[in-house]
């Protein structure tokens, strides 16, 4: 109840025009642009800040919870966008982030009475994508309480614990996930990573090797394995004088080979690698390459929207959907050729298209010539029925 009351406050705050909040530091030779919006939920204050600093050459969205920075996401802007359209672009990204924050809080209230563990898990993943770890933990725990064998929820909870630095709890969570589903390469990789964080490299290597048996093209695992061997090696000698360094080098090469993204800097770094320092640099390049490819946040957004399609369809606004379509199309346009993103995009198109049926119906109702409007209205009704049936059949 308290959450709902606070939720209303959130809406009032979000009605403020972002343009009014633009801060321009005119004293500087280059103009820094930032927009901020504060929201309240369950005794917590959340500040969304979207900013562009030309001196740093980057745009980003940051979320602060109770004054503490929780997440920071870079916004990819082309040179032209950064030059000409920065204010408009920032407004769009800012609006999308704020509207997402509003909607997850609203969904939070709506989910209380549900017995659907998957739904809590999906909401938790959005919180995790925003690095709101307490909220994510709460949702994953609820998911587990409603579906005790839900391996995905244990895995996600483990990721939260890892980010909170609770390594032992993370290990326990991954163990529970693997108990429920032992053949999932992701869980084994995360389990291994938790050991890696605890500097228990032999145990980590064991888990990574198991993961590769299930998925021999798992880029992250090769990278993690390489890191384990690199850290075990001495930093003094050349690569080929030490078996650990040779193993690390081979795993890094393999990671690049199975990875989707080609980067000439990495190809060059592989050719020139001679010693421990070169290998460390290669690891850093591969790691940043992998992070750029990461689509976790967007995938969690796809899952979240499919959740809303199921439980919150009537409250979904056209703008929310078109913003969601904008993000998905942009990721796919940037080369994110992931099948699950495309499936998410397809569902979004099908949902969005229902607004168009509504608009068509409104126009036919206004048409005075009944010889055309009545048959067309009857056909639109059939389209609406067909569309509803299809969306229900597709499901979240």
């Amino acid at each position, binding site marked *: 109840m308290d959450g709902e009351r606070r939720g209303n406050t959130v809406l009032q705050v979000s009605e403020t025009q972002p343009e009014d909040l633009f801060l321009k530091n005119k004293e500087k030779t280059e103009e820094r642009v930032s927009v901020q919006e504060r929201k309240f939920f369950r005794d917590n204050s959340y500040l969304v800040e979207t900013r562009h600093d030309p001196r740093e050459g980057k745009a980003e969205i940051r979320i602060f919870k109770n004054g503490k920075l929780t997440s920071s996401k870079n916004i990819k802007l082309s040179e032209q966008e950064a030059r000409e359209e920065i204010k408009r672009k920032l407004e769009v990204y800012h609006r999308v982030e704020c509207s997402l924050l509003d909607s997850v809080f609203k969904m939070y209230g709506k989910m209380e009475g549900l017995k659907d563990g998957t739904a809590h898990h999906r909401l938790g993943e959005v919180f995790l994508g925003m690095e709101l770890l307490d909220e994510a933990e709460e949702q994953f725990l609820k998911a587990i309480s409603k579906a005790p064998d839900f391996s995905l929820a244990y895995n996600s909870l483990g990721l939260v614990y890892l980010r909170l630095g609770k390594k032992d709890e993370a290990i326990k969570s991954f163990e529970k996930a693997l108990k429920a589903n032992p053949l999932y390469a992701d869980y084994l990789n995360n389990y291994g990573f938790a050991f890696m964080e605890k500097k228990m490299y032999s145990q980590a290597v064991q888990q990574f090797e198991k993961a590769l048996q299930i998925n021999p093209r798992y880029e992250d695992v090769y990278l993690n394995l390489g890191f384990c061997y690199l850290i075990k090696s001495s930093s003094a000698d050349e690569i080929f004088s030490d078996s650990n360094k040779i193993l690390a080098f081979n795993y890094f090469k393999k990671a690049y080979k199975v990875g989707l993204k080609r980067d000439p800097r990495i190809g060059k770094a592989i050719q020139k690698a001679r010693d421990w320092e070169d290998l460390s640099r290669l690891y850093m390049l591969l790691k940043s390459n992998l992070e750029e490819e990461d689509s976790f946040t967007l995938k969690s957004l796809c899952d979240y929207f499919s959740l809303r399609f199921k439980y919150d369809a009537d409250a979904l606004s056209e703008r929310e959907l078109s913003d969601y379509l904008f993000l998905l199309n942009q990721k796919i346009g940037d080369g994110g050729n992931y*099948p699950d993103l*495309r499936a998410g*995009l*397809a569902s979004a198109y099908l949902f969005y298209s229902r607004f168009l049926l509504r608009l*068509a119906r409104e126009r036919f109702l206004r*048409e005075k010539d009944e010889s*055309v409007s009545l*048959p067309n209205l009857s056909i639109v009704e059939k389209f609406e029925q*067909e569309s509803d049936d299809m969306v229900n059949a597709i499901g979240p």
Partner: protein
Amino acid sequence: MQKEKISQIRVWSEKNSRTCDSSLNSLLATFFENLRKFHEAFSQMDLALAKNPQNGNLYQKIVWIAYQAKRLDEAEELLQSSSARHPEDYRISRAAGLAQLLKGENALAVKNLQKSLELKKDEEVTHFLLGYSLLGLAEKNMRNTDSGSDPLGSIQDELQKAGEMPFFKEDSDFQEGKELLNKGGFPRSLDKMELVLRRVRELQVEPASFSCLALSFVADEDGIDQNEVDCTIAELKKKCEQGKEYPEINNHLGLCFLILWRSLFSQAQNQLGLAVKKDAKFQKARTNLEIVQSSDRRISALVKELKF
């Protein structure tokens, strides 16, 4: 318009124009008119009227097309026979008035337009046509030094009534024509009003962009460009703001939204197809694709029943 699209619509027209709904013949007429193929446009209107002689909206259109095809006599014949069948339809007598006006028979035009106003008062476009016919008549009389009665008051009166419509209020030629008339410049006022007449005709029928879009959609549901639909919707909405004389505009806007809906539907199918192509084991995407494809088949059958 792209050559490919033109030839696609032409092929469709050859195959279907005899059997299709009259509204599609009317759209084909606009399509051919836009290509300046006035005789083909006239034939399509002839077909449309033969299939649906009760639709008064079609008459205004055939008159203008007949004028461009220099076949006004045929149009007038059609109008006379229809007028006998539907004496109560104000649109037929107005179209007859327009045909006579375009032939330069202003006195006859005035009679028909007055009759149309008796059948339906407060039709701004009819008031304009009547004002314009009277203006032409006054100008002729001046040239023939036939003093007659002073027509200025009646012309001003008709144009004043026409001016109630937002379209005329915002038209600079109409406003200038009225001012010239007040100053007694009949011939120059007539020139201005002739420009307005051409735009009035455009206001009364669907834009060429809609006819092309609708016909492309009928000929090939999947080959629609979203930008084209967006532009047509914007054009139709602008027309809506201008006036009330385009009777099926809401139906056409509704159809545009349906065309956009189909386009998104195709995109959803494409995305699912690409997801399955990229990952053949992606069972959920495969199942969803099957659901969407099966739904698409049922929807395609219904699309054929839409009234354009």
